């Protein structure tokens, strides 16, 4: 029954899909990619990577707090993620500079970890398996979990699509948006809440770090490749799907954990995107300089 990789990709795929857990993993992973990519795209655009990482870390106090209170871990995840989003949104006022913002978020994350550690010591249990906390268990998704992710992804994506346009405006040029009457501050907190809900739902199956990898890597890759919002948004969804599928596919035929492969494929996609952006930036420059010296290639303009 050991997985066997052959040259024929069709038989490989058929073997892979013969197992219920593998089908669930692919379905769940695809859903995760579909939610994580658009939210991550805005996260990278708004350079809120640290905030996203901090929100994903809320899984630790969430899990240990729920264990202490004797309730389901999901409640703890949702509670602490939302609390984290509100704390980040509330503490980081519109006028706070980059330094203060990073101190705020760092302190919030440190407090969350400290509280989680306190809960754990009060609970008297031992830290659960490192790999499961960090990289979850994509290969053990139940049908019930699949339905939960489906519901949360619909809510989160629905909310995002309602305020996507003003959020894009506020993210690209906050001052101009504020002058035009866009509620920049509320949008920022709303976005963090949507991100927190999605992260809480996803991290239950992907773990703390994989959710972060899926938020940041596809989005950053897409934004280095295209400065157009819609193109790079779609690209990031595509990248996220490819990362999950490839990672899971390789993991099936190997004895090492899926989290490692997904993180590695994500990293490889990012490197490839940076390389491609570098090459295409270099190529059109020479002929263009002859015609019109002022035109510079806007490749990757969004992320810089």
């Amino acid at each position, binding site marked *: 029954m050991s997985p066997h990789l052959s040259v024929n990709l069709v038989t490989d795929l058929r073997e892979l899909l013969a197992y219920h857990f593998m089908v669930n993993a692919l379905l769940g992973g695809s859903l995760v990619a579909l939610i994580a990519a658009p939210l991550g795209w805005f996260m990278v655009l708004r*350079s809120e*990577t640290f905030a996203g990482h901090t929100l994903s870390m809320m899984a630790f106090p969430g899990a240990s707090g729920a264990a202490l209170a004797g309730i389901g871990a999901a409640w703890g995840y949702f509670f602490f993620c939302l609390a984290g989003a509100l704390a980040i949104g509330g503490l980081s006022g519109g006028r706070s500079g*980059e330094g203060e913002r990073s101190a705020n978020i760092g*302190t919030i994350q440190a*407090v969350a970890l400290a509280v989680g550690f306190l809960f754990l010591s009060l609970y008297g249990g031992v830290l659960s398996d490192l*790999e499961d906390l960090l990289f979850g268990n994509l290969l053990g998704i139940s049908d019930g979990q699949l339905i939960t992710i489906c519901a949360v992804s619909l809510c989160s994506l629905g909310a995002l699509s309602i305020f996507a346009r003003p959020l894009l405006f506020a993210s690209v040029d906050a001052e101009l948006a504020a002058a035009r009457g866009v509620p920049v501050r509320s949008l920022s907190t709303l976005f963090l809440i949507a991100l927190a809900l999605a992260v809480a739902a996803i991290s239950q199956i992907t773990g703390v770090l994989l959710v972060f990898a899926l938020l940041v890597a596809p989005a950053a890759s897409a934004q280095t490749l295209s400065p157009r919002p819609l193109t790079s948004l779609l690209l990031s969804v595509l990248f996220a799907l490819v990362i999950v599928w490839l990672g899971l596919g390789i993991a099936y035929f190997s004895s*090492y954990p899926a989290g490692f492969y997904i993180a*590695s494929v*994500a*990293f490889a996609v990012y490197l490839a995107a940076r390389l491609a952006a570098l090459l295409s930036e270099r190529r059109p420059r020479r002929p263009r300089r002859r015609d019109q010296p002022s035109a510079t290639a806007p490749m990757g303009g969004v992320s810089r």
Partner: protein
Amino acid sequence: MFEAEFMRNALLAGTFIALACGLSGYFLVLRGQVFAGDALSHVAFPGALAAAAAGLDERVGLFAVTVLFGALIGALGRRSRARDTTIGIVFTFVLGLGVFFAALLASGAGGGSGIQVAHTLFGSIFGLGHGEALLAGAIALAVVGFTALIARPLLFASIDPAAALARGVPVDMLNIGFLVALGVIAAEATQALGALLLLGLLAAPAGAAHRLTSSPLAGMLLAGALSLLAMWAGLCASYEIPALPPSSAIVLIAASIYLLAGVVAGARRRAARRGAVALAPATLADKIGA
């Protein structure tokens, strides 16, 4: 309390690590780079696991990975928007490698013993031996000395890199040197105190100092002092309340100081505004009276 050997060791190591974290944290907050410190505390673990998988001493892997990662972040330069994203991508990959090494160790001939060692490496501050505490103190003191030595040019390079570069300050070398020093303290702090403590001591006391004063020298001294205060108070609180882990106590006290500093700064700002408003009508009235 000071009768206990473990408490004396904890105070010895904690004092110097707190000073080093407060001082480095001051620059991290100034540069908006706290995420880099966070990432460094995360990559320490894979480093130890990789060294164990290669059959090397785990301390070597720990220090090598954090120092390399620090140099890498420093070399990525100052474009902070892209920088945070890149740090995020690289450190998730490094953690993925950590999981790979954990699996490798678990399935290897040595069984789970390598992971066991890696786990014990990330100890509690109350579990330090005398020699370890001395070593931690010495390393932290060296980082404090190094940071103090480069403090002036680093300050210049952090506040106005373009002007610093024009004046011939080696901005890139300073960035890399600072983050390498941070990598050293990250490696030492994660193995002596646990990864949890580092972020709290880097972000909260320095953030509080930035809120309370805009003078660099006062800010650095205050960051170190507040960090020290959190460390000592946290150690004492944890000694008195056994259910409270020392790292949680220290971080929670540091965060309270940070909140308090925010309240004080807010009240001061409001008072200044009110003073300005109160002053204006008075002078106006004086003028009318005169």
